[in-house]
């Protein structure tokens, strides 16, 4: 037994000192204990995977920022899922996907959503006008008041980001 035992790792200290408080904070935002527990857990997992640890003088402010991020993506995920379920509800019952298929589809929607959110706003608009509305570049250029060559650049960037997603999806399977 060494005379000066090593101090416990910083995240463990944070966890011991603030986990209960964070869970309480999330419970007030969510109004649900189980979800608050899940998201508090997610926040600490995020903390473990980032290289930056919170400043020692005000760890709770840092934890709150991280928890807000977790909360935001949770709400977004829930909205996406909700929108998907609503879209399903108006489909003929013959084509209703199984629970597993639904899960896979919601996962895929989230992945697409993440890529779209990661794109600059104009790039995102160009991609969506082209993909969802089948709008030719000339029309997109007119609508957004940019040059057609710029539309092409946005498309190249968006496609690059989308196939990076596909590679990641392929690797994770």
């Amino acid at each position, binding site marked *: 037994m060494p005379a000066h035992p090593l101090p416990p790792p910083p995240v463990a200290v944070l966890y011991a000192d603030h986990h209960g408080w964070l869970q309480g904070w999330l419970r007030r935002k969510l109004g649900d204990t189980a979800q608050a527990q899940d998201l508090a857990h997610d926040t600490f997992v995020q903390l473990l995977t980032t290289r930056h640890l919170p400043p020692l003088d005000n760890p709770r402010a840092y934890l709150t920022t991280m928890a807000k991020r977790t909360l935001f993506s949770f709400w977004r995920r829930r909205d996406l899922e909700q929108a998907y379920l609503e879209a399903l509800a108006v489909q003929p019952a013959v084509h209703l996907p199984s629970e597993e298929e639904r899960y896979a589809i919601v996962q895929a929607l989230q992945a697409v959503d993440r890529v779209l959110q990661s794109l600059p706003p104009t790039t995102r608009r160009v991609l969506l006008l*082209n*993909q969802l509305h089948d709008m030719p*570049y000339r029309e997109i250029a007119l609508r957004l008041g940019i040059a057609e060559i710029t539309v*092409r650049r946005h498309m*190249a960037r968006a*496609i690059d980001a989308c196939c990076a997603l*596909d590679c990641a999806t392929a690797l994770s399977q």
Partner: protein
Amino acid sequence: MSATSTAALRQQAIAWLVEWRSGAMTDRQRQALARWRQADPAHEAAWAQVSGDRKSVV
């Protein structure tokens, strides 16, 4: 196949896909794309990876 040429092929495939989605592709360009895809299995692989089987992109 070196990593560099894979990346270069990917960029070529992206350039083709940008053309493909332009809404103004000429017959001549379509034929050029078909020739490019047929020229080398690596081209076709890059095209498949970039355009995928996703109906929304192709």
